[in-house]
């Protein structure tokens, strides 16, 4: 899977995207965002490629990737679960929900299940505070989630 996920076609796609930018200056985060969209994550090889192509130091790319929690250096599962820990979600009980996901899946945050099906991460505010606590799986949003709902939610996949 690792080899496949770093296919030549994907690097070509990313290269074409970078070449299409009017200027490379100040575009690193945008490019990394796109790269994560293409590869699903940002392994060393991809960061090195971006650094060379953008003519920025590799250390700077790595610094940016590790600074923003959005970027991931580990492959995401087929379904990525994001539990919002923003203020509203947190006070309405997001933490026990996150703990329940960890328990059910047997993984911690920023990890992927052994079968590659689920990955789990916590994020800050998805802009749906009225539905707090919020969980996103892929593009699907679950609102007013409680600990007891976790098992059923997972069963959908």
């Amino acid at each position, binding site marked *: 899977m690792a080899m496949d996920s770093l296919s030549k076609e994907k690097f070509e796609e990313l290269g074409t995207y970078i070449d299409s930018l009017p200027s490379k200056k100040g575009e690193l985060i945008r490019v990394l965002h796109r790269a994560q969209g293409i590869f699903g994550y940002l392994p*060393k090889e991809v*960061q090195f490629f971006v650094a060379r192509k953008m003519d920025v*130091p*590799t*250390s*700077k790319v*790595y*610094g940016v990737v*590790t*600074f923003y929690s959005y970027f991931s250096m580990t492959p995401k599962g087929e379904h990525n679960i994001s539990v919002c820990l923003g203020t509203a979600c947190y006070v309405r009980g997001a933490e026990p929900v996150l703990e329940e996901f960890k328990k059910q899946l047997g993984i911690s945050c920023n990890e992927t299940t052994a079968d590659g099906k689920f990955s789990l991460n916590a994020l800050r505010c998805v802009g749906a505070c009225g539905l707090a606590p919020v969980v996103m799986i892929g593009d699907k949003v679950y609102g007013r989630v409680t600990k007891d709902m976790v098992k059923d939610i997972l069963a959908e996949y």
Partner: protein
Amino acid sequence: MAEIHVEIDGKKVTAAAGSTILDVAKSVGIEIPTLCYMKLHNTEYKCQPASCRVCVVEVQGRRNLCPACATPITEGMVIKTTSMRVLQARKMIVELLISDHPNDCLTCNKSGQCELQDLARKAGVVNISLSGKKQSTYEVMENKAIVRDMSKCIMCRRCEKMCSNIQSVHALSGVDRGFEAVVGTSFGEPLDNTVCVGCGQCVAVCPVGALMEKDDTDAVIKALADPDKTVVFQTAPATRVAIGEEFGLEPGTDVTYKMVTALKNLGADYVFDTDYAADLTIMEEGTELIGRLTKFLNGEKTALPLLTSCCPGWVNFYESQFPDMLDLPSTAKSPQGMFGAVAKNYFAEKLQIPREKMFVVSIMPCTAKKIEAARDELKADGNPDVDVVLTTREAARLIKFANIDLANLPESDYDNPLGESTGAAVIFGVTGGVLEAALRTVYEVLEKKTLPSIEFEEVRGFEGIKVATISIAGQDINVAVAHGLGNARKLMEEIKNGNPRNLHAVEVMACPGGCIGGGGQPYHHGDGDILAARMNCTYEIDEGKPIRKSHENPAIQALYKEYYQKPGSEIAHKQLHTHYTYREKY
């Protein structure tokens, strides 16, 4: 510039707009402790993240204390630098810093030179009542030159600023965020896999023991104690104007011959001079330059400008950064490399001992020299030409270990024949010096007459990039000098883009000021005057030398007669020259 009036600790002061509180305090002799802040005048180095908060002061009318290093003065500002509130806050800040710092001062190599240690004493910290999570889980990372122990890091980012802004190397970056944040390499790769050139400028500015040179003194002690080894020392040009500082002497004190005595007292069999090899380098590199210039003037294709190759940080830099330009550097080995080759071939033969029984120790102002000495190109059948490299700091440590007080020693001469040198050799230690030394010889060889003025002022001083045109044999020779790898990068980009200034020869030294500011020198703690004093002292030594041109060194002349025949001969090429390889790095 507009003038601003402020009151600081009761003193009325007028200062230029844009000055910081710290600048103003300094101008009237008020000392405000700093930690993350560092500014090295004479160079462009400045680190001012205002992150440590040690320099906080009280400004009337402001609710919070503010960092003196980063707060510009405003009209009518009333500043207190020693109020009880300030002192207590500072003490608390230092206590917090120390609460996440290993308590191993007794065995830390930085002890006595550590700015955090000094600060703790100054701030009156006698007890750390705070406890909490510690960042002491980082693995120590080291290569042949540098040891990084991030558990001691205080996140001042001085190293990163130096590596990125001044050196343009970018081996380091802030990694992760919050409590986990650390200064690290790309992907946590070992230093050797990264673009790190080993210059050690990160070590030179680290306030604590997080960054240190790799200590190789033990290997030297073992060799000195081994009756089977003939231990041969060589001392680099820039060490003699700096090592005295470690023994309480004023910066810029010439201790050349006291250092020789100290090394002899340690038990060295021979104490020789890298300066001798610097003269030899001029013969080889100068001949190469003349060869390329002659070809160029005859309209033949040749690689110009010739780049100097004495500086190992610089060599590592172009090998990883400029793969298309590896035909430009001189193939001449560095003086350290040449000395090793001469010692283990010519001199070992003279002593009639196998090279394995000779142990060559270099005293260098440099951490990258440790990496250079380990190169395969500087070995014969696996045996290195230079066995161990000690930085100036390590040499001082070793001398102190042997209870020798260098400052109060009588003077001794270098041994012969590898101890004789000229004024042209000693200036290898300062930016512009290698080129000046080369010009002294190239001029006389091509003009076949004596130089009217031996001093090339245009290539001296601290300016980042110096350019000069010298008329030799009816031809304008354009030369450039860069110190600090950021300046070198600018020159290299220029050359890559068509060499518009038509440069014929370029000297680069990786460290600000040249080797006098090397990563292995006694710590300057941000005092640029120390570098200036070392530079002046170097030129004074040159002036005081009876012979000031490399080609007039009688020992070098004899060496060619006896052994190498002539510069650029086949045997000279085999032993005194090297080659370069592209090394792709993170």
